[in-house]
């Protein structure tokens, strides 16, 4: 936990370059500054942290209120409280001695190795990407071959991660390219999902492939509907209106019982077909047509390839659009709206296209979500989803397509992996349930990654428009996400 402020230099008082230098030091590319702190300072700092944890935990870790017959009951847990204080003391002391105040921080060697790896072979990144792409192509077969018993679970996880990658890429158009902070992206995801579900409910002949473009179109229209009133807003005013819009959509879905089914949601959403073939057992199914044995895993593999293709489409369109005048207009808008206007760029149309194209991909992902789940309810479209998608975009490094992939794998894969930690309950006793710590760890990871790398995991990217030669630019040079 935190210690006193005195041994931390105030970032604000440093010149602009110092921030970059501090980051370089954290990455291990520059030698650390000896702090000259003694063991006594470390101890005092750890003691402060312990006291702070004691204060913070007193009413939460120690005292617990529970519903009991005849009102609320107060129980105390002194042991847990003392243990948490001890952990804070020991943890802070270890951090002080080995990382913050050490002449040679333990993290430095690690950082140097990583940096050296990157410098030694500049082409590694490209090859790594190609490797990743090939792995993504053969992923379902890889899992069915290697983990025959758990393939379904792994492919399901891959589908989930791929959905978030697609959503991240879609939001990246709005936030990363056009610099419009959107806190209500989940609204378009919901519009896409509900468009398909309702169309399928009211018109029997509409299947996934017909509904997919319709859902995208409807989401794009909603993107414009939202975009229009907020055209004049900037920065955080825009953020709160988009957040409000996301909540409005959710509340309407929840309360318009006759049309959307309210909290009961919509079930029985049709599964996608393979050129008219249903992936079902028996006569006329996919397996029957191709003369192979039926296996439920086929449907998961098929779903995986659908979302993979949709995600690739999102990426392809984004990369192409960045080279078109409209994409350049987005990036110019992000850098400086006033300059943009004075150069004759129509900022209204630029913003609206960014909103609606970003929304369209959200709509595609939404209708895929509906067909994959077979059941949707407003529960799935809370603000937390928007926050997770935005976190993926920002943690990955704004405007970076690869960053989104890495952040999705780390964050979504990470929290899903935490579901499988049942063995921990054998260590900590049967009362210990690791699943309930999932979101706590997710939140902590968001904070720690951001503090560790404020510009995201992939913080350099190629500029889309160049004058003479391509140079890597740091994300710190472009005022991304300023919203004006």
């Amino acid at each position: 936990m935190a210690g006193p402020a005195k041994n931390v230099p105030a970032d604000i008082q440093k010149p602009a370059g110092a921030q970059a230098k501090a980051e370089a030091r954290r990455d291990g590319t520059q030698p650390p500054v000896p702090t000259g702190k003694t063991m006594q300072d470390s101890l005092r700092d750890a003691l402060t942290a312990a006291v702070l944890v004691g204060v913070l935990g007193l009413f939460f870790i120690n005292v617990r209120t529970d519903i009991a017959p005849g009102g609320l009951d107060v129980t105390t847990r002194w042991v847990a409280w003392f243990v948490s204080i001890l952990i804070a003391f020991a943890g802070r002391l270890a951090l002080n001695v080995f990382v913050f105040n050490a002449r040679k921080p333990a993290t430095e060697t690690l950082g140097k190795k990583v940096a050296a790896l990157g410098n030694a072979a500049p082409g590694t990144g490209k090859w790594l990407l190609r490797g990743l792409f090939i792995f993504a192509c053969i992923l379902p077969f890889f899992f069915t071959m290697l983990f025959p018993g758990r393939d379904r679970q792994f492919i399901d996880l891959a589908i989930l991660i791929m959905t978030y990658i697609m959503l991240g890429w879609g939001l990246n158009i709005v936030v990363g390219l056009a610099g419009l902070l959107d806190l209500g992206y989940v609204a378009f995801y919901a519009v896409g999902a509900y468009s398909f579900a309702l169309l399928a409910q009211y018109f029997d002949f509409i299947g996934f492939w017909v509904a997919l473009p319709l859902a995208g179109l409807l989401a794009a229209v909603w993107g414009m509907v939202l975009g229009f009133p907020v055209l004049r807003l900037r920065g955080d005013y825009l953020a709160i209106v988009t957040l409000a819009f996301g909540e409005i959509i959710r509340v309407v879905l929840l309360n318009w019982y006759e049309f959307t089914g309210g909290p009961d949601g919509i079930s029985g959403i049709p599964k996608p077909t393979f050129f008219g073939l249903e992936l079902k057992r028996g006569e006329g199914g996919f397996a029957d047509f191709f003369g192979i044995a039926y296996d439920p895993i086929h449907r998961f593999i098929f779903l995986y390839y659908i979302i993979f293709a949709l995600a690739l489409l999102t990426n392809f369109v984004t990369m192409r659009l960045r080279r078109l005048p409209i994409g350049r207009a987005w990036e110019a808008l992000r850098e400086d709206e006033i300059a943009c206007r004075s150069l004759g760029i129509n900022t209204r149309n630029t913003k609206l296209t960014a909103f609606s194209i970003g929304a369209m991909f959200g709509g595609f992902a939404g209708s895929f979500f509906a067909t994959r789940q077979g059941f949707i309810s407003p529960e799935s479209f809370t603000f937390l989803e928007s926050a997770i998608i935005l976190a993926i975009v920002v943690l990955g490094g704004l405007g970076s397509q690869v960053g989104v992939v890495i952040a999705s794998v780390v964050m979504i894969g990470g929290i899903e992996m935490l579901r499988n930690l049942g063995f921990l309950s054998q260590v900590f006793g049967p009362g210990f349930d690791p699943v309930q710590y999932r979101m706590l760890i997710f939140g902590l990871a968001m904070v720690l990654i951001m503090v560790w790398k404020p510009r995201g995991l992939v913080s350099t990217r190629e500029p889309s428009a160049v004058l003479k030669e391509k140079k890597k630019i740091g994300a710190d040079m472009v005022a991304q996400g300023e919203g004006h």
Partner: protein
Amino acid sequence: MEYFVQQLINGLTLGSIYGLIAIGYTMVYGIIGMINFAHGDIFMIGAFIALAMFLILTSVLGFAFLPLVLLIVVIVAMIFTSAWGWTVERLAYRPLRGSFRLAPLITAIGMSIVLQNFVQITQGARVKPLPPQIQGGITLMEGNTETGAIVVQLSYMQIIIILTTLVLMAGFTMLINRTSLGRAQRACEQDRKMAALLGVNVDRTISLTFVMGAALAAVAGLMFLLLYGVIDFYIGFLAGVKAFTAAVLGGIGSLPGAMLGGLLIGLIEVFWSGYFTVEYKDVAAFSILAIVLIFLPSGLLGQPEVEKV
């Protein structure tokens, strides 16, 4: 008419709570220009501390004199919630000061998730009901409508909430306008680098801003607990969003604006539930925000941004 007056009173009460939370948002936004998403959860933390302290005093230690109990609860809640506010700033925002703008927003959302889940784990996910503590009130008017007799009542609880809010607002305005701390805050708001050069301890001033915001949120948390009698780990989200909406509606960065916005949001919500449908009260509040912002892009009392080239 009677119904209208009653709704007006209810709206002002709810609006006072929103206003107190909104001040925390608007101050932080004014001084470092970030949305402190975790502030709603600080309010929730305040409500939980108040509940625990209240139960310790009444059922464990056996205090019976309610005004004294409430006084101790409010002081303890303010102190401990301030510690939380300080820690959140120290851990999640200070390391990112001077970084680009979305970074602290993401840590704020992360902190909000952390606080919610921390409270859920340590205190359980079930709601905590507290029976009404302050009962009775003053009957203002009585009337008859076609559905039966209607009584307009101003309950003691509502009087306490509105009076406390007024006192805190007055004290707070004094603090900002008259003391050296307030001067330092206003200086940091205008130009942090220049303030640092002139000897203002910027880090300390920002920390104190968070501490003050958290203390006000703790008072709001106690009021919420006493008014509604039910809290859970999730109350912070909606209250936070509403309060932030209030801050934006009033013009973010402006203290009277936050209070005005809070009262407006409270009134809109109560009148909408009273005259139309209770389900769509949030939609009404958010729609009015959107409409106001279309015509006044910097809120009701906010100063329009000057575009510098």
